[in-house]
């Protein structure tokens, strides 16, 4: 009896609080990896957002915009959902952004409809995330998006037999699927497909297996972080590089902060990715200058800062379109089909998938001014998310 009463009170409280959520300050909740092994990427969220605010000020349509950060640390959906709920209920945020890990993004997605909060995903790269709620937009990338061009390059470079080695989790499996399908359609042969546990650090046995498969090229994807280095080293030290087996990967394996650790042995590694810090454009130069002015270090810049910078652009656009009112449908409608030139190149939001359409570049590890960079050598223009696109 008492419980029922409590419920009624609660229901009344909800209907009151939703209407009263308007304030002059509009809060945006950012959930990112601020600590732990992936802290670098959370830091990049902040760098990217700070750069945008530095450039465009913190008021939109007369409203002050405030970014509130929360730490997701590791894949922990229960915690991320609690953080999102806290941001929505307690901080009364009007927009959510961030999310580094797929399961965490998946956990937040079901909240959005009821909370009427649009979310801009700044990293989590499994294709299906944007399908989980109509209020999700993504400014990062998907594995399909970056991998399909990789398979095409592999074919162009004359690879006939490819061994695929990916990390055994969602994005890795996406990468494997995308590469295999594309490469086989192009007439190539996949002779080996290995899924490596995420915590693998010793890649010797994997290299041995690739060697025995007789492949002339390796395609790999591992999430940016310590293991990528071990993979590249094992590739070189086990004599595969010397034996003429080529290495092709997505850019995650050769993120700029990792390059100095890979060292000169990494020269010549090919990768496809949507952003290179060395991308030669006025927008990128301005962006990097802003990052550094905000205290960011150039050798810590990763793709998540660009995703955050562009994500902030979308949020500002949504606030502008709704005049600061909570109207997620209108907000999302405002950014569908939006086009602009990002530091990574020309991009647009696909109105059907709400995922970013962007150029994917073929890059090669090179030395320039004594520093290792990913030198862009070819461009695949306006790539959609091949995982969601109707083919």
């Amino acid at each position, binding site marked *: 009896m008492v419980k029922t009463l409590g419920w009624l009170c609660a229901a009344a409280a909800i209907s009151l609080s939703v209407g009263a959520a308007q304030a002059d300050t509009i809060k945006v909740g950012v959930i990112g990896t601020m*600590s*732990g*092994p992936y*802290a*670098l990427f959370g830091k990049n969220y902040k760098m990217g957002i700070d750069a945008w605010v530095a450039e465009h000020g913190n008021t939109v349509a007369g409203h002050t915009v405030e970014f509130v950060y929360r730490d997701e640390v590791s894949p922990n959906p229960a915690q991320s959902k609690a953080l999102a709920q806290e941001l929505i209920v307690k901080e009364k945020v009007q927009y959510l952004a961030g999310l580094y890990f797929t399961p965490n993004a998946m956990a937040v997605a079901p909240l959005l409809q009821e909370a009427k909060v649009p979310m801009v995903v700044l990293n989590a790269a499994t294709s299906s995330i944007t399908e989980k709620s109509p209020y999700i937009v993504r400014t990062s990338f998907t594995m399909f998006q970056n991998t399909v061009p990789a398979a095409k390059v592999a074919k162009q470079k004359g690879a006939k037999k490819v061994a695929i080695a990916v990390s*055994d989790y969602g994005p890795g499996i996406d990468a494997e699927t995308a590469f295999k399908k594309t490469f086989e359609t192009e007439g190539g042969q996949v002779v080996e497909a*290995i*899924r*490596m*546990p995420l*915590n*693998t*650090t*010793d890649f*010797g*046995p*994997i290299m*041995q*297996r690739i*060697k*025995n498969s007789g492949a002339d090229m390796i395609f790999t994807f591992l999430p940016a*972080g*310590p*293991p990528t*280095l*071990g993979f590249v*080293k*094992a590739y*070189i*030290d*086990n*004599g595969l590089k*010397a*034996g003429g087996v080529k290495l092709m990967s997505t850019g995650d394996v050769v993120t700029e*902060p990792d390059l*100095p*650790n890979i*060292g000169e*042995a990494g020269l010549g590694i090919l990768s496809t990715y949507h952003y290179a810090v060395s991308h030669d454009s006025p927008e990128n130069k301005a962006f990097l200058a802003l990052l550094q002015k905000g205290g960011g270090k150039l050798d810590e810049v990763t793709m998540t800062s660009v995703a955050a910078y562009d994500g902030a652009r979308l949020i500002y656009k949504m606030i502008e379109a709704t005049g600061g009112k909570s109207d997620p449908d209108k907000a999302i409608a405002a950014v569908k089909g939006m086009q602009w030139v990002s530091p990574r190149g020309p991009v647009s939001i696909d109105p059907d998938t709400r995922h970013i359409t962007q150029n994917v570049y073929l890059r090669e590890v090179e030395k320039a001014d004594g520093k290792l960079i990913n030198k862009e050598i070819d461009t695949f223009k306006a790539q959609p998310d091949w995982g969601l696109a109707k083919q």
Partner: protein
Amino acid sequence: MQTLLGILPDALAYGMVLFTISIGLSIMMGLMRVVNLAHGAFAMIGGYLASFALTSLGVSYPIAILIAVIGTVIVSVPFEFLLYRRIYRRSDELTQILLTIGITFFIVGIANYIFGPTSKPIPLPDLLKGPFDLGLRMIPAHRLFVIGCGVVTAVALWLLIEKTEFGVRLRAAVDNGDMAEALGIRTQIVYSATFALAVGLAAFGGVVGAELLPVEPYYALRYMVTFLVVVSVGGAGSVTGAMAASLLLGLADTTGKYLAPEFGEFFFYVAVIVIVYVFPHGLFGKAH
């Protein structure tokens, strides 16, 4: 058969890394009966110090190893003095587990705070870089070095334990601490020396094994149980046991990775369960 022979050097190298790091823990657990989950944390400190010495001080690889080992032992002194002494031989496992988890968290937090949350490279000297042609296959030169380090460690420890005065005291204290005390061996000194030895070996293993177990802020947590598992499988306090367990588990893990990498550590832990079930005190262990 060819392929199995091909992965043997990898298995051997991995096993030797496990051995080099775990052997210190094994001796410590045999003597002081401390379930020390923070052993990996000391290996991590060694790795951090070596990385710092190599990249910031620019010293040579052998000097870096020396700095790492001595530095880690120095860092470990307050831990031994203030904390470990309280749990030698007398506490139950639960207390030991929790205290050493606490120590691990503390060290990980401090390392993050001082060195930042990125992985730490330990650049190899040119001699150890690149592939080495075994005839049968190419193998990273570094792995031969690791295998050599494992063998040298094992032989040195054998000599230390079997042929020196310290070894006599150590064995006496392992077999019967009270009796050793009664015979005038000052066990506290033997304990402290053993602790320093264990920590030094951990640091050494952490540095030379960094190619296989890369040094990063969560190293201590990631491998927290691995070393403990190796010691239990081998039998606490037994050099032979630790060697057998390291090689066996190294083989199980490497073969598993080769044949069915998608199963992760499944085969490693299946092997652990079978061995521990059949030999609850380890392959070469004694019941206490």
